[in-house]
């Protein structure tokens, strides 16, 4: 084997000078402080019965909500509701992720699929998923399936559209490279199209999980039995205002955690992307 001697030593790309950034702990502290300030301002406005033009005197105080939250955490009902909503989100979102990616790839890669599926998708897409509640009630024998359907419909379109754009944006050279190695269509799909479109797909999933939460909660409020959305609306009808806020805080936290999980998974899968200067890691 001949090793090359004439070649000059491979020059390593110059590492960019590390920009001075605040340490991770400082940033975490800053974020916690922002949340605390928000709660503090809320407490101040509600405890003092502030009436500017908007009225804070009807709202429960942050402390009241905090106490109600603590109380509810001790009940089985809270956790059952949580599990119900999570199960609905889980099944609806996973279904949307799988079918959305499939539909996006299909419409981007096949003209026939684009002609057959495209128009239907474009007409259904602008309909807000929550407006599908009557359809869901008529279609499915059980409420539960209807709610999962609405959650699915909410996430499906962002995932499909993002996937379609991402697949179309994959540089043709990558595909040409694998084709000139004798790669089949399936090989090109598995080795080039899917990994190459992944960053865009992750963006679609991120949007999708957020919309899914909006819709699962709304669907539970309209037609649900159990679940965080149902419980929140229930609290409102029995004039348990702290209970309403516990529900809202729960939704906020769950939404934050699940989209964080999607983001984290996405970042792990797309480590090959150049690091973003503003990324929070």
């Amino acid at each position: 084997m001949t090793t090359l001697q004439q070649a000059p030593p491979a020059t390593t790309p110059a590492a960019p000078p590390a920009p001075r950034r605040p340490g991770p702990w400082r940033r975490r502290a800053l974020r916690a402080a922002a949340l605390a300030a928000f709660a503090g301002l809320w407490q101040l406005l509600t405890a003092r019965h502030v009436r500017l033009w908007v009225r804070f005197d009807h709202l429960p105080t942050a402390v009241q909500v905090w106490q109600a939250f603590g109380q509810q955490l001790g009940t089985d009902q809270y956790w059952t509701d949580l599990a119900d909503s999570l199960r609905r989100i889980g099944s609806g979102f996973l279904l949307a992720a799988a079918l959305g990616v499939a539909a996006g790839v299909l419409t981007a890669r096949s003209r026939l699929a684009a002609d057959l599926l495209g128009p239907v998708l474009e007409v259904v897409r602008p309909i807000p998923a929550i407006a599908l509640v009557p359809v869901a009630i008529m279609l499915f024998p059980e409420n539960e399936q209807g709610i999962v359907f609405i959650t699915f419909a909410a996430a499906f379109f962002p995932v499909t559209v993002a996937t379609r754009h991402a697949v179309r944006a994959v540089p043709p050279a990558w595909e040409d490279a694998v084709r000139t190695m004798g790669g089949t269509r399936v090989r090109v799909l598995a080795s080039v199209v899917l990994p190459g479109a992944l960053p865009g797909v992750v963006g679609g999933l991120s949007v999708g999980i957020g919309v899914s939460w909006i819709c699962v909660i709304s669907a539970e409020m309209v037609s649900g039995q159990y679940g965080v959305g149902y419980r929140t609306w229930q609290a409102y009808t029995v004039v348990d205002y702290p209970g309403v806020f516990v529900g809202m805080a729960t939704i906020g936290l769950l939404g934050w955690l699940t989209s964080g999980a999607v983001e984290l998974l996405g970042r792990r899968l797309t480590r090959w992307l150049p690091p973003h200067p503003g990324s929070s890691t």
Partner: protein
Amino acid sequence: MSLALTARGLSLGHPGHPVLSGVDLAVEPGELLTVVGSSGGGKSTLLRALAGLLTPTGGELLAGGSPVRGPSADRALVFQEDGLLPWRSVRRNVELPLAVRRVPRARRRGPVAEWIERVGLGDHQDRLPRELSGGQRQRVQLARALVGAPRAVLMDEPFGALDAQTRAAMQQLLLTVRERERCTVVFVTHDVDEALLLGDRVAVLGGGTLAAVHPVPHPRDPAARTAPAVLRLRERVLAELAG
């Protein structure tokens, strides 16, 4: 084992807007043919047609005597840039042609390691393409193109985006590597000096037609760059490109 490539009356593009028209070109097995032309002159189109990525609108295209019906591992392609899959490490990019051919993992290791070594990237095999310099990325492309022992390598301005010094090193690397691999090489460039340095013959392509094919005096001899015969040919090629 090297491949003859033949174009007969090759045409490509829309009627009224041809990119290539009536190109007759015979690439001998084992030769290094450089194709020189200005941008937009159809060089890349010719190369992609030879690779089987574009279907001719007229004429015929033969590889080893049989018609080209699509891409094949027989004819490896090297791109100007962006040809590497950015999520695969150097090693995994180089092994791709073998993986596509379903060579078992254990039998990939040897040739992959050998080629990474031969292009001088032994210390970089676990890096991602974005962690490499432009020249290093082209080394990876060269290793990837050759690891599967193709019968022809088609190179589309592979060193066009490199600085002069890196470019010279890469030209040298290509020639060194070719000492042992007797595959046919078609090398497209817009740089006349590069075409004359690397080629056994140089084909001049302008406005979608083949102006001429010249044998190069003293091929691959850097010291002969200023030889009168080479300078005369250089003038001639430049004139053909201008006219």
